[in-house]
């Protein structure tokens, strides 16, 4: 369990975890999240339920090296750590947004067509992995993509978002799902959503 001195951050984990679950960005046991504080990382416990986090579900380990906490940490702790090493992010949130994940099967990248999504994200890249959970390949590729974008979709899996705060990463994650839902609903009306994309956003 994380040190009591991180009480405020632990409370933030519970708040964001609950919100992520309630709006359906994760199912009961999926997803994980972390923050970097100095040379420490706080991350959710392997198998924890983000919607019902307890203090004991928030694990503390090293930014550089493993310590005892590592055995309890999320399966994807190495991916989180690699993202922190490769970017200046202070928070990482991994979610499984249903519509965006569905869209990832049929798109090479997601270009928002709604105003707010365009304003904030412009383009969300999609990457594909042979083994898409906590793999070495993810450790290598995701930090590279997140050097350039605040959120990335993994085809058929879910999203990794970064920010300076958990709330910021949550914002991008929720926005991605909203973007995907709007695209999906436009298409459900029998309209080609591509006509609403701004072509230059593909170059962003």
């Amino acid at each position, binding site marked *: 369990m994380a040190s009591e*001195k991180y009480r405020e951050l632990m409370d933030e984990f519970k708040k964001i975890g609950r919100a992520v679950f309630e709006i359906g960005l994760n199912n009961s046991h999926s997803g994980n999240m972390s923050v970097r504080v*100095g040379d420490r990382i706080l991350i959710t416990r392997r198998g924890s339920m983000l919607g019902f986090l307890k203090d004991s579900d928030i694990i503390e380990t090293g930014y550089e090296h493993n310590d005892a906490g590592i055995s309890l940490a999320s399966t994807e702790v190495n991916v989180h750590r690699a993202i922190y090493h490769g970017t200046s992010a*202070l928070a990482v949130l991994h979610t499984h947004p249903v519509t965006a994940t569905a869209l990832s099967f049929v798109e090479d990248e997601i270009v928002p067509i709604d105003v707010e999504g365009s304003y904030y994200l412009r383009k969300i890249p999609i990457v594909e992995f042979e083994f898409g959970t906590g793999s070495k390949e993810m450790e290598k590729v995701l930090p590279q993509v997140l050097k350039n974008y605040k959120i990335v979709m993994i085809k058929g899996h879910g999203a990794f978002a970064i920010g*300076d705060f958990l709330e910021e990463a949550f914002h991008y994650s929720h926005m991605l799902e909203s973007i995907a839902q709007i695209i999906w609903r436009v298409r459900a009306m029998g309209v080609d959503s591509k006509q609403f994309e701004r072509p230059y956003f593909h170059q962003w």
Partner: protein
Amino acid sequence: MAGWMGRILRVDLTSGTVKEEPFVREIWEKFLGGRGYGAKVLWDELPAGLDPLSPDNRLVFAVGPLTGTTSATSGRYSVSFKSPLTGTISDANSGGKFGVIFKKAGLDALIVQGRAPKPVYLVISPQGVEIKDASDLWGKNVHETTDILLEREDKRGSVACIGPAGENLVLFSAIMNDKDRALARAGGGAVMGSKNLKAIVASGTLRVEIADRDRMKFVTYEANKWINAHPITSKGLPEFGTAMLVNLMNEAGIFPSYNYQYNQFEHAEDVSGETIAEKILVKKTGCWGCIIQCTRKTKTSRDEGEGPEYESNWSLGPDCGIHDIEVIAEANYECNRLGIDTISAGGTIACAMEMTERGYYDAGIRFGEKEKLIDYLHKIAYRDGIGDELAEGSKRFAEKHGHPELSMTVKGLELPAYDPRGAQGQGLAYATTNRGGCHLRGGFVIGRELLGVPRMIDRFSPVGKGSHTAILADFGAAIDSMVVCRFSTFALSEIVWGRLLTAVTGVQYEPEDVMEVGERIFNLERMFNIREGFSRKDDTLPKRLLEEPAPLGPAKGHVVKLDQMLDEYYAFRGWDKNGVPKPETLKRLGLEECLDG
């Protein structure tokens, strides 16, 4: 060459020679320009322990790859030097149009060293640099000097110069450009004065080459959209100028007054941005090509000029217990003419006022004595009487009279207008800035703690502040090296700046590359200071902020919890417990030159 002009000139005033330096592209890609390039030159060329007022100190005038382009807020330039006030590495940057004309004269940087045997000024143009006699200008104020040189050399040019304060080696004298724009902090004016260099006239109309014009057009369009949408850059700053912060900070209980004895001011409304707009504003204007337009042209019943900005308004006003906006504005105009840093001037006078009030030393001025304010600025600029002591800054003044605790400084530089007892991260930022007590170089954490940019964080909590402060400081170092305005960062993130740099230079700068450039510069500056003998002991705050709880308002009862934040900050940065960057950190940042330094 796209982005950079590919030209660096070095002037040795002792010998009166000018030579062209090799443009090493790798260095400019690693440090961008401005503050970053200045830090590199100072690290490479200044021996430890150098007297900042000796001929061997350098003045590195530098612009960046975005200067003079259509990029938002890019009408700026930077000057780097070893500070005579703090003994640290220092830089200051300024808007107006000097930076743009400097670049249109074909230069990326001008390195000035040596000491001229008599006063001189420089004229820079695409043809090179001329050194000219300035005997007739010595003693003239900033406005007079500027008018004469524009008339004499090029009416469409631009002038950076010093006033009497710089000539008289006031340790917090400024370099001024375009009359009222200041490279204010840490005594660049005194360094210029010590070299007998009165002014630089820039003249030129060259164009900056852009690597990808289509991409530049698109990214600039997007950037301007963000600036026009953000409430701070589209409404707050244009409508009220930087003084919009007065009421916000006062309500939050972090608006210092009476030399930081209090954290609110009972007459804040009298000096607010709203009051300025109502009583003395003539018109709004801005730097070259800027769409924010935060500059205030103002007029009192007796005088007119620019400003006051938030910090100047505070230092010459509430920090001295003064709330007459006309007197504050006039004191600000006078600082501009004399070439003085308003923050340090006000902070030093406020220190003298408290010294007098407490009966420690009679400096002849007390809080609220507005009628003496401008006279004291003159005394400082001309080192007349008590002004000779005050011209050394509040730290030396307070130490001399046995009460160093009354100097509200970090590393000898007077603090600006945010009481960190109600904004813990800003306290850490003050303590860790490389140029001393500054609200910008250590990270403008107020943005997160009070303004919610990009999110609001708990301002009273020390947890996580080490990490937030470090990344803000790094981002700021990159911004100062492009060289663009800090206000743009309310609206534009490192993502936009990376794309703009890529479009202009043709070099791929991903957003994280921007952050890494900033981190590299910040660490190089840190290594400069370590070489000068600075360490963890200097990363501290005035005793008042660490031990005396804030007396008023929402911040009442709080002190700055510095040690806890400092440990996290060092750990985040990859520094040891004494604040020294570890070898692996320096290697990661490509600063191998520091490993033996």
